[in-house]
């Protein structure tokens, strides 16, 4: 118990003293995870919407696979990406291993199925409502997808926020492809893992509280910006 209290103290001091390293690490965490969320949303939201709009033969199977991919274990993603990006791997020449870019790629792979799945579920409801009208207006597939995304944007926020949550707290994959290199690829989660290994629980918890605070701040900021709740229901 003493440790948790010490953790809070550590977090407090880290924050109030504007610890330079903490800043760098936190900013890198944010930058990597936000980039990953943007990229993943750009892929996942249209894809999830497409699955809601389009009936095709293997649709049910595709949805099951998408749901199952939510369970892609980060370590496995990290490992496969490592093999691909390694010097001796097919994309080795790009020199991406142990860079923030590699970490972003890993997070994109991990959160895309999650975002797509939540987006699909949200869009299914809206599609049921709009179906007849959009069919009658003779919309193209792409117009349907765009209309649903636009009119359902508030619901899609939950999808992206869930993706962000998973990305910012993720450690298994980025540890492998990022390498937790000081001043280069160390982010909050990998720093926490490192301190935990050293047994410095107070510092680890302190970093953890900073991370939670960061996630909270991002969520509140986005909620506030989008005013999801203020504008009420349709």
């Amino acid at each position, binding site marked *: 118990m003493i440790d948790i209290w010490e953790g809070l103290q550590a977090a407090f001091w880290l924050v109030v003293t504007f610890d330079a390293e903490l800043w760098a690490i936190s900013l890198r965490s944010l930058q990597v995870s936000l980039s990953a969320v943007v990229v993943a949303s750009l892929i996942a939201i249209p894809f999830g919407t497409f699955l809601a709009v389009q009936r095709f033969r293997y649709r049910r199977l595709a949805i099951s696979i998408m749901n199952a991919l939510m369970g892609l274990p980060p370590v496995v993603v990290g490992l496969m990406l490592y093999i691909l990006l390694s010097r001796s791997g097919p994309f080795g020449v790009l020199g991406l291993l142990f860079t923030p870019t590699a970490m972003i790629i890993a997070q994109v792979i991990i959160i895309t199925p999650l975002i797509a799945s939540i987006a699909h579920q949200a869009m299914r409801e*809206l599609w049921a409502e709009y179906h007849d009208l959009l069919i*009658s207006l*003779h919309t193209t597939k792409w117009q349907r997808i765009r*209309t649903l995304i636009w*009119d359902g944007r508030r619901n899609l926020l939950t999808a992206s926020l869930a993706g962000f949550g998973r990305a910012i707290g993720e450690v298994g994959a980025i540890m492998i492809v990022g390498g937790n290199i000081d001043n280069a690829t160390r982010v909050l989660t990998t720093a926490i893992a490192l301190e935990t290994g050293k047994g410095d629980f107070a510092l680890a918890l302190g970093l953890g509280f900073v991370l939670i605070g960061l996630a909270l701040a991002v969520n509140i900021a986005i909620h506030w910006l989008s005013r999801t709740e203020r504008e009420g229901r*349709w």
Partner: protein
Amino acid sequence: MSNLFPLTMTDCVVRRQGKTVLGPVSLTVDQGGPTIIIGPNGSGKTTLLRVMHGIERLSAGAADWAQNDQGRQAYVFQSPIVLRRSVADNLRYPLQLIGVAKAEIEVAATAWLDRIGLSDIRNTRASRLSGGERQKLAIARALIRDPDVLFLDEPCANLDGHATREIEALLQETAAAGTRIIMSTHDMGQARRLAQDVIFMIAGKVHEKGAASDVLATPGTPELQAFLNGDIVT
């Protein structure tokens, strides 16, 4: 602009969950005055309209327009489907879909808002409209693309006497301008005022059809006679 007509329906059958909801129905729809579909609740009026518009899956038979250009048809649904947007945006939407220039869209939207008397609440969310306002919006949205064929499913069910007259006048103008109108209603007065042809349905089948002057004045079957009297018909 080549001709859509005629629509040829041959032995159209719609079955849902083992129950025959429509048909077999064979019909030809050619250019002409308004056709009004009447019949008891659940007799298949909505289903017939949807088959004609090409948005209902047929279990057997075929319904084909001479020219397959669904973009020149419009449909007003029985319970109006409004987009989760403002009143004005609902009107703009069909034009935006076909890439009409912005300025032109504004002109059309403003004109229609005036015509249906919703200019004052153009920026209110459509979901907040009263039942009658919503219905008027749906009709305007269907007419804004100036379709060749207009299907309406009980369009005046929620309208007051004055609005009903207005819509009827609008539909008569529209018909005079060359738009083919096919509409269902439960209001026999309205049927008498608007119909040139009448289709009378019972239990999914076309029971009687012909020129309104004949059919409504001298019903050919005891069922239609009973229906017009408000007696039970099955």
